[in-house]
């Protein structure tokens, strides 16, 4: 009857979104009169399982065999599938990260189980799971259920609140072995380049985003820049020297509209919207973004939206709690300075 939750980790540290998944698992387990079992694979599994205990897991399966010492889909899916087949948990949850999505989908099909991806709400009604999740890129939502004996669920980042930590709580650990060895792994990881740490949009509590309006930078292109597109230079400069300082003061992630990404103002990793990331921060500051439907689909779940735009008619103002009609290149530096004064004191 147990509820499983996969605690994702990277370089020996848990992904904080996994604690949100653990919170969702705890809620389901309480309704079932059961408890939560954490699955922790890879480097530092024992210590991470201890943390899972402090966040509310009663049990943990840990494995740090060579084949799972770092994340490998084949090995992780095999280990999860074997556990699910033996133990038949009612639910298997994980954070809806890149890895959570592929791992749970793989194990779900291995066991012919239902999968609900990207849940924003979960509840049990007469023993049936009812889940809410986005559809049509977040333009509408759907209500789903699953009738298989085990149901896999990935949860949307920031949809569930991480549980409080109890430093005295302990977890009952069981070490398990994977049936796979390195010889069975067909995918070889050759190299890894760390991402710039500030990009993590889906976990961010505050996002500062720029759009097409970033090209209205009053700075002139320096003469030593050669033949560059002046709009691209101005917008890039604006993201680095106007938006980034505001993001730094707020501890925010830097986002962008599709228009800004497609124009080459900022890399794709920063895109918020239908073909980028769907985000739901506490505060979203949209600078020089008109608010096309496809952008709104990606950010309308934000708790508070602030819009800064020259055009008083821009649709983004309809979503915004606060709006400033004005030139972002005047407003944003002034806002950065004002916040610095407040936060500094």
């Amino acid at each position, binding site marked *: 009857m147990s509820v499983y939750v996969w605690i994702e980790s990277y370089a020996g540290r848990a992904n904080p979104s996994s604690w949100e998944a653990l919170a969702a698992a705890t809620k389901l387990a309480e309704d079932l009169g059961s408890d939560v079992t954490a699955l922790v694979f890879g480097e530092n599994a024992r210590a991470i399982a201890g943390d899972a205990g402090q966040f509310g897991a009663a049990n943990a399966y840990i494995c740090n065999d060579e084949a799972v010492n770092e994340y490998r889909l084949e090995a992780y899916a095999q280990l999860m599938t074997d556990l699910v087949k033996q133990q038949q948990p009612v639910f298997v949850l994980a954070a809806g*990260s890149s890895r959570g999505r592929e791992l749970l989908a793989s194990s779900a099909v291995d066991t012919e189980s239902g999968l609900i991806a990207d849940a924003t709400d979960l509840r049990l009604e007469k023993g049936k799971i009812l889940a809410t999740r*986005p559809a049509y890129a977040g*333009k*509408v*939502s759907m*209500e789903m259920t*699953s009738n298989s004996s085990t149901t896999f669920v990935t949860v949307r980042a920031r949809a569930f609140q991480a549980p409080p930590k109890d430093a005295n709580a302990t977890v009952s650990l069981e070490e398990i072995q994977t049936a796979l060895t390195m010889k069975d792994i067909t995918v070889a*990881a050759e190299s*890894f380049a760390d991402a710039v740490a500030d990009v993590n949009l889906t976990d961010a509590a505050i996002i500062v985003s720029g759009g097409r309006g970033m090209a209205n930078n009053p700075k002139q292109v320096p003469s030593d820049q050669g033949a560059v597109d002046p709009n691209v230079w101005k917008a890039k400069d604006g993201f680095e020297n106007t938006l980034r300082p505001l993001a730094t003061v707020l501890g925010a992630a830097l986002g962008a509209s599709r228009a800004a990404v497609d124009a080459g103002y900022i890399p794709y990793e920063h895109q918020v919207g239908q073909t980028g990331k769907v985000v739901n921060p506490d505060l979203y500051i949209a600078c020089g973004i008109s608010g096309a439907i496809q952008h709104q689909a990606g950010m309308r779940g934000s708790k508070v939206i602030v819009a800064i735009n020259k055009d008083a008619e821009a649709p983004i103002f309809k979503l915004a709690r606060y*709006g400033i009609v004005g030139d972002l290149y005047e407003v944003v530096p002034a806002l950065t300075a004002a916040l610095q004064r407040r936060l500094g004191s």
Partner: protein
Amino acid sequence: MHVVSFTRSTPDTAAKVWVDEEGQVTWGDVASVVNPWDEYSLEETIVQAKNCTGEATVIAIGPDIHDDALKHSIAMGIANALRIDEPNADIRDSLVWSALAAGAIRKLGNVELVIFGKESVDVATDQHTYQLARRLGWTMLSYVSNIIALDPDTGTIRVEQMLEQGKRVLSARLPAVISVMKGINEPRYPNFLGIRKAAKAEIPVWSAADMGVELPVAATAILAYHNPPVRDVATEIIAGKDSAEKAAILAERLFEEKIL
């Protein structure tokens, strides 16, 4: 080398999508287009098949609305198109969808690479891609931002993968299923000849029985669609004599309302 891409028709990205009084999802009179993520996978399918002097096929699963996406794919330059239609199957369940997809790949026989776009905007998920790979027992390479090398002679593929934590280079053996990110290429626009070819194309339709697929039981069911809660915001347009004053008032509000 036979490269296959799966696609589907979805509402235009700029379309307003809502739930009507009957509880059905609609986007009014706005046209359906190829799933926006698939523009990249279709382009990559054309390029990779051409580089290996191989064959390219595009497949859609579902009713004839998906012919729009298939015709767009033909117009872009994919030679073969195929639709799978099984009225008894609930293809919204990914176990069912992936069983049909695997049946098509097996029936085609000589496929070595399947390329997906990152996700489908209608179902808002990518689970069907991983489940197809798993059903076939093939290598899965997700979130690919660059195919560095594809060598049909040695049966190997090297890709760059884009994850939250950074970029990894992975190498693997074919056959493989990959999903590609925006930015992997610049999708082409269909040209006049392509559009004419697409208009004349007869798209074969296969059923589950044609492929010898025994349908699994759908494990999930969609109970209802809902419009998102209306954002009940009273917008305050901040007034002030200049930008500095407006910014100072905004900062004040963010603290007053405990947003910061």
